[in-house]
């Protein structure tokens, strides 16, 4: 792998996201902001419908990253929300490695750039996951 090796290494789909998926996430997280499940409240705030809680998209990207490099190895996860996601949207997650792994130590530092796009190709969120992975990780041997 080298620094210019920036093509997507994997993709994964989540959804279509149902209202039940939103409620399940909100119940699990404890973030019960009604704008994500109460249509009347969302309309009173000027929206046509409820929109997906951003942290659900973050959760999908984090699951995707964990499955790629191993959940134990991730030391930082950072996400910027860029566009709203709506009930029924299908989210496609893709990952790129954006740093050259340093193979000098027992652990190799890798940064994943993760993108979540909806079915129209609009970017819902971009995230970065830093990971310290063992040299013998299957993630590295697959490169």
């Amino acid at each position, binding site marked *: 792998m080298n620094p210019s090796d920036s093509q997507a290494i994997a993709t994964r789909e989540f959804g279509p996201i149902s209202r039940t998926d939103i409620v399940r996430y909100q119940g699990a997280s404890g*973030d019960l902001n009604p704008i994500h499940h109460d249509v009347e409240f969302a309309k009173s705030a000027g929206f046509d419908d409820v929109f997906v809680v951003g942290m659900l998209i973050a959760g*999908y990207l984090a699951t995707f990253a964990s499955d790629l490099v191993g*959940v134990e190895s991730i030391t930082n996860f950072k996400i910027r929300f860029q566009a709203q996601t709506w009930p029924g949207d299908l989210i496609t997650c893709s990952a790129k490695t954006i740093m050259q792994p340093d193979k000098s130590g027992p652990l190799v530092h890798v940064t994943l750039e993760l993108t979540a796009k909806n079915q129209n190709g609009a970017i819902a969120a971009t995230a970065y996951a830093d990971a310290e992975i063992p040299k013998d990780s299957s993630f590295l041997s697959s490169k």
Partner: protein
Amino acid sequence: MTKDNPAYSFSMQVSYGKYLEFAAATGFKPKPEKDHPVVPPTFLATAEAWLPPGAWPAGEILGFDLKRSLHGEQEFTYIKPVRVGDRLNGRIWLESTFSKAGSRGGEMRFSIWVTDFDDENGNSVAQSKMTIIETGSGK
């Protein structure tokens, strides 16, 4: 408000039930409880479940209007892995605020909230950083 004078302090049990619930919600494949599994990277969002119902520091402290507020960015940093069975002590505090002119008129207000998570011995374990934006009223 500072780190030493937080908006909320709370104690959080990383239970296997909450781990399973969060895994089911985010498509994460859970591991057995006996392994004391490491939680997924955004699991600490569940800290919110340990606050009083309806707690929302951006509204309470800065007067942000919930209907005009958005979650702009979120970051989790792990000094060591968080595992099922851990008990964490958390403190939420306001790191900074700033304003910009909104593209649709009015003022956009930004606030950055940090939650520090310590173990029971007072050692730092993880940190969450959340950016909440209140959009301008002139839409």
